[in-house]
C-alpha cells in the first residue's frame, strides 16, 4: 500500500467524520431551533400593556355643547366627515344637526355595537337625540378616547388586532412592497436576495433588502438587531422552520402585530394596531388608502421615514408605495392618483392624545392594587375620569401664561414652571392634570410631586375652623393689628400684611377677601393652632400638619393635588370625596375587575361650609382675586383664594365654579423668587382656564339654618344697599346678632345700641 493512498484514506475518514459531526451538529441545531421557535411561537402571547381611556362624552338633551363644540369633540376622536355614513367613525353635519356613525365601543357595563344616531342642537346646546328610526334616545355615549397605555420598562407598547380588524389592503400592500412571493416561498426568497445583492453592489450601498416578511418577523420576534452572518443564517433557518410549521395567514397576522413602527421617547410603537392610533388617532380598520400606504412605507425605517420628523421622505416613500400598489393592480390607478394627492395627515404631535402627567397618577393609583406585570402585560382596560376637553384647555391656559411670563425674566436658562389640577367637586373626579410646561413629557410631575409652600391658601381652613367654634360669623370683627408671637423655638414671629399696613377692626369676610395676615393670625390664635391643624386633616390632608403658629399663614408644603383635595371638600359642601382618576378596571376579556366607587364622608357642617364659600365669593368679587373677572363673565359666581409664599416663591390660585374646581401653581423648580403674587401668574391661568370651560355659577342653595344679610364691607355693620355705598352680602346663622350701621333702619329695641357696643367690646377683647 502506498503512503499516498493511506494518506488519502485517512483524509477521507477524517472528512467523513467531520461531515457526520457537522450533520449531527446541524440536526441538533435545527432541532433546537425548531423546539424553540415552535414552542415560543405557538404559545405566543404578546405582552399587552394596559390601555387607558378617557371618560366618554355623554350626549343627552340638555348638554350645553354647541354644534361646533360637538364637531370639535368628534374631531378629537378622529371622526371624519362623510356623506353616506356607511363606515363607523364618520359623521355628517346638516346645519345644527349632526348624524354620527358611532364606533363599536367597550364600556364597563356593555360592549356597544357601532350605531348611527342624530344629535339635534339649538342655541343652548343639545335639544334632542334620535336613532335612525327616529326613536328618541335619552342618553348616548361616544367611544372613549384612548389616552395612553402602561408599557413595561423595555418600552414595547402595542395594541393587538385580530385578522377581522385588519383592512384587507394592508396584507396585500405588505406583500407588494416587502415580499412579493410571500404566498409561495418557504421562508427565504433566494431570488429576492440575489436581486437585492445585485442592486446593492451596483449602487455601492444597501438599497434593497431581500428579507421575506417571515425573516423580518423572526428578526423582530426572536433575535436582536446585530447584523452578523451567523445571525443571518439563524434567521434563515428559523424562517424556514416557521414556514414549515405554521400557516401563511398566521404568519401574516403575527407580522402585523409584531413589527416595530415608531418611537415616542421611551415608548416603542409595535404593530399596526397601535401605529394606526399613534399616527392617525383612529382604529386600523378606518384607515384610508393613503394612510395604509404611509404605514407600509414606515416599515422600512421607522426613524428614517418618521412622518413627523421627516415628512418629505415619508411622503416620497408613501407615494412610491402607492405607485407600486397601482402597478401591481392591488388598487385602481385612479384611486392611487387620488391618494397621492392627499397630504400626510398624521396627528399634530407625537404625544397627541397622550397625557403623561395624568397617566402617572393613574399608574400610582393602580400600583396599590396591581403588580407591575399585570399592568404592562395583562391587557387590562382602565377607564379614567380624564376629560380631554378640560385637559387640553388646562394645558393651553398654563403654557400660554408661562410663555407670556418668560419675557419678564432676563435669565432664560431656568424656566418658570407650573402645574394644574382640575376636578369635578361632587364626584371627586380628577378631570385634568398638567404636570409642567412640557405637557407631553413624562418628567417631573409637579401636580403630584412639587410640594410647595401654600401661603394664603391656608386661610380658608383657618376661617372654617373659626366659624365652626360658633363664636364667629362672616360679619364678626377681628383686629388687624400688629402682633408678636413666640414660636416653640423661642424665636419671635412678627407677621406683616402684604401692604405693611394694619387696618384695625375688620369683619371676617373682608379679612379673608383682602387676605389680611394680621387679622388672620389673631383669628387663628384665638381658635387655636392645633384646631386649625386638625381641620386640615379633616378636609382631606393625609397627615396632620405641625401645629406651628406659622401654619395660620400657610407654612405648609403641599402639592397641587393635595390642595385640590382640601378645596374639593369645600366645593363639595363639607363632604370629603377621595379624588380619583380611575373609575374601573376591566380584564382583557372585558369582565369588571375593580371599581373605585364614589364615596362621600361628611367632614364639616354643610351650613358652616356654605358661610365660608360665600366669603370665598367675596375674594373674587371684592378682594385679592378680583382680577378673575377680567376674563370670567361678570354674571358667573366663582369662589377662590389667592396664595403667595414668602419672597414670592410660589404663586397659587385655588377656586371653583359650579361644575369645576381648579388649583394652579406657578414657581421655579429651584425655589427662587418669582416676583409674582397669587393674583398675577396663577390667577391668570385659573381664570383663562375657567373662562374657556364656560363655567356655571357656584349656586349652592342657602341652607335653611342661614339667612342672607347685607353688611358694610369695611365695618361689618348691617346696612342696606340703599343706605351705604360699600356693601356685600353674606350668609349667617339665623340667630346671629349683628350690629346695625347708624341711620340704616330703625331700631325697635331701645337698648340695642348699648348691646351692640358691648358685643363689639367683647369681640375686641378676644
Amino acid at each position, binding site marked *: 500500500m502506498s503512503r499516498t493512498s493511506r494518506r488519502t484514506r485517512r483524509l477521507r475518514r477524517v472528512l467523513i467524520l467531520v461531515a457526520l459531526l457537522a450533520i449531527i451538529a446541524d440536526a441538533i441545531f435545527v432541532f433546537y431551533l425548531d423546539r424553540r421557535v415552535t414552542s415560543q411561537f405557538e404559545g405566543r402571547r404578546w405582552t399587552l400593556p394596559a390601555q387607558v381611556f378617557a371618560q366618554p362624552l355623554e350626549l343627552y338633551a*340638555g348638554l350645553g355643547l354647541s354644534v361646533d363644540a360637538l364637531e370639535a369633540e368628534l374631531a378629537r376622536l378622529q371622526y371624519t366627515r362623510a356623506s353616506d355614513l356607511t363606515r363607523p367613525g364618520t359623521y355628517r353635519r346638516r346645519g345644527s344637526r349632526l348624524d354620527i356613525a358611532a364606533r363599536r365601543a367597550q364600556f364597563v*357595563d356593555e360592549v356597544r355595537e357601532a350605531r348611527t344616531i342624530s344629535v339635534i342642537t339649538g342655541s343652548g346646546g343639545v335639544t334632542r337625540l334620535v336613532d335612525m328610526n327616529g326613536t328618541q334616545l335619552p342618553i348616548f355615549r361616544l367611544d372613549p378616547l384612548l389616552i395612553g397605555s402602561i408599557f413595561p420598562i423595555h418600552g414595547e407598547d402595542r395594541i393587538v388586532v385580530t385578522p377581522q380588524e385588519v383592512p384587507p389592503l394592508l396584507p396585500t400592500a405588505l406583500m407588494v412592497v416587502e415580499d412579493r412571493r410571500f404566498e409561495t416561498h418557504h421562508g427565504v426568497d433566494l431570488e429576492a436576495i440575489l436581486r437585492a445583492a445585485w442592486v446593492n453592489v451596483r449602487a455601492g450601498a444597501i438599497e434593497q433588502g431581500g428579507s421575506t416578511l417571515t425573516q423580518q418577523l423572526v428578526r423582530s420576534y426572536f433575535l436582536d438587531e446585530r447584523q452578523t452572518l451567523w445571525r443571518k443564517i439563524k434567521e434563515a433557518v428559523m424562517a424556514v422552520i416557521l414556514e414549515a410549521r405554521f400557516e401563511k395567514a398566521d404568519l401574516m397576522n403575527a407580522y402585523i402585530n409584531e413589527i416595530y413602527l415608531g418611537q415616542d421617547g421611551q415608548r416603542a410603537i409595535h404593530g399596526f394596531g397601535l401605529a394606526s392610533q399613534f399616527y392617525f388617532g383612529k382604529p386600523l380598520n378606518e384607515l384610508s388608502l393613503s394612510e395604509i400606504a404611509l404605514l407600509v412605507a414606515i416599515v422600512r425605517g421607522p426613524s428614517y421615514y418618521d412622518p413627523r420628523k421627516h415628512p418629505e421622505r415619508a411622503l416620497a416613500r408613501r407615494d412610491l408605495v402607492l405607485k407600486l400598489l397601482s402597478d401591481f393592480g392591488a388598487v385602481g390607478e385612479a384611486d392611487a392618483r387620488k391618494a397621492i394627492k392627499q397630504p400626510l395627515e398624521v396627528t399634530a404631535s407625537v404625544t397627541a392624545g397622550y397625557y403623561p402627567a395624568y397617566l402617572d397618577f393613574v399608574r400610582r393609583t393602580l400600583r396599590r392594587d396591581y403588580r407591575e406585570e399585570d399592568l404592562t402585560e395583562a391587557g387590562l382596560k382602565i377607564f379614567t375620569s380624564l376629560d380631554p376637553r378640560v385637559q387640553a384647555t388646562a394645558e393651553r391656559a398654563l403654557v400660554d401664561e408661562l410663555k407670556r411670563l418668560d419675557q419678564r425674566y432676563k435669565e432664560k436658562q431656568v424656566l418658570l414652571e407650573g402645574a394644574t389640577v382640575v376636578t369635578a367637586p361632587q364626584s371627586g373626579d380628577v378631570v385634568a392634570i398638567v404636570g409642567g410646561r412640557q405637557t407631553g413629557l413624562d418628567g417631573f410631575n409637579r401636580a403630584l410631586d412639587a410640594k410647595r409652600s401654600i401661603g394664603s391658601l391656608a386661610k380658608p381652613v383657618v376661617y372654617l375652623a373659626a366659624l365652626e367654634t360658633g363664636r364667629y360669623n362672616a360679619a364678626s370683627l377681628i383686629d388687624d393689628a400688629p402682633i408678636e408671637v413666640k414660636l416653640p423655638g423661642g424665636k419671635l414671629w412678627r407677621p406683616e400684611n402684604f401692604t405693611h399696613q394694619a387696618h384695625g377692626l375688620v369683619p371676617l369676610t373682608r379679612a379673608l377677601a383682602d387676605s389680611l395676615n394680621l387679622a388672620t393670625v389673631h383669628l387663628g390664635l384665638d381658635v387655636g393652632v392645633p384646631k386649625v391643624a386638625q381641620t386640615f386633616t379633616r378636609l382631606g390632608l393625609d397627615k396632620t400638619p405641625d401645629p406651628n403658629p406659622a401654619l395660620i399663614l400657610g407654612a405648609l408644603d403641599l402639592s397641587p393635588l393635595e390642595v385640590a383635595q382640601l378645596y374639593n371638600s369645600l366645593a363639595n359642601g363639607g363632604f370629603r370625596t377621595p379624588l380619583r382618576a380611575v373609575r374601573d378596571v376591566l380584564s382583557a376579556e372585558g369582565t369588571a375587575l375593580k371599581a373605585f366607587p364614589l364615596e362621600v364622608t361628611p367632614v364639616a357642617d354643610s351650613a358652616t361650609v356654605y358661610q365660608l364659600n360665600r366669603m370665598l365669593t367675596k375674594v373674587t368679587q371684592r378682594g385679592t382675586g378680583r382680577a378673575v373677572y377680567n376674563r370670567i363673565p361678570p354674571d358667573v359666581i366663582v369662589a377662590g383664594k389667592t396664595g403667595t409664599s414668602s419672597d414670592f416663591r410660589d404663586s397659587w390660585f385655588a377656586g371653583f365654579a359650579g361644575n369645576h374646581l381648579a388649583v394652579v401653581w406657578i414657581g421655579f423648580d429651584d425655589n427662587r423668587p418669582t416676583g409674582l403674587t397669587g393674583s398675577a401668574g396663577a390667577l391668570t391661568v385659573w381664570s383663562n382656564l375657567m373662562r374657556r370651560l364656560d363655567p356655571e355659577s357656584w349656586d349652592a342653595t342657602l341652607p335653611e339654618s342661614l339667612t342672607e344679610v347685607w353688611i358694610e364691607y369695611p365695618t361689618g355693620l348691617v346696612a342696606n344697599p340703599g343706605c351705604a355705598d360699600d356693601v356685600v352680602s353674606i350668609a349667617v346663622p339665623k*340667630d346671629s346678632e349683628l350690629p346695625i350701621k347708624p341711620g340704616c333702619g330703625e331700631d325697635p*329695641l331701645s337698648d340695642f345700641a348699648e348691646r351692640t357696643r358691648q358685643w363689639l367690646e367683647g369681640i375686641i377683647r378676644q
Partner: protein
Amino acid sequence: MMRLTLMLAMAMLLSGCNLPNPYAPPTPPRQVPGGAPSLPPSPESQTPVETLPAPEPVPEPSPAPPPREYQLSSASRSLVDQAHAQMVAGNFVVAAGSIERALRIEPNNPLLWIELGKLRQAEGNHAQAENLGRKALSLATGDPRTQSSAWRLVAESLRARGRGPEAREAEARADALVLR
C-alpha cells in the same frame, strides 16, 4: 343692563308675592331673631325693593327660590331605570356606575344621591348609605318630600347598624316633613 332690568323686574315681582326676596336685605336690619322661620315682611322692608340699586356687580347665588320638588332629567331617569335593572340582576358595581353617570350630569340633584344611597344600603354598605343620605339632605333645601326620603334613608341605615333611637329620630323627621 338687561340683566339689571330683569333682576329689578324679578325683585318687584317677588315683592308682590309673600316670598322672601333674595336680593333684599333680610327683613329687619335689626337683630335676626333666633330660629323664627317665617318673618312677616314689614312695610319698611318692602320699600327699598322698589328703588333697589344694582345689588353688586356680581349677582348673588340662588337668585330664585329653590325648586319645590326635584325631578330627574330624562337622561338621569333612564340611567336610574337601568341601574334598577342591573341591581335586580345582582350587579351592584355596574348599577352604581350607572347612577354615577347620572350624577355627573346632575351633581346637585338630591334624588340621585338618594338613589346611590339606597343602592349602598341594599349592598350592605350602611355607613355610605347614611353619608349619601346626608349629602342628599344638604342639597334638598326647600323640597320637603325629597328631604323626607333622605331622612328615611338615613333612618334605615342607622337601624341596620342597630342604632335604634337615632333611627327613630330620623324616621320622625322624615314623617314630619311629609305631614307638614
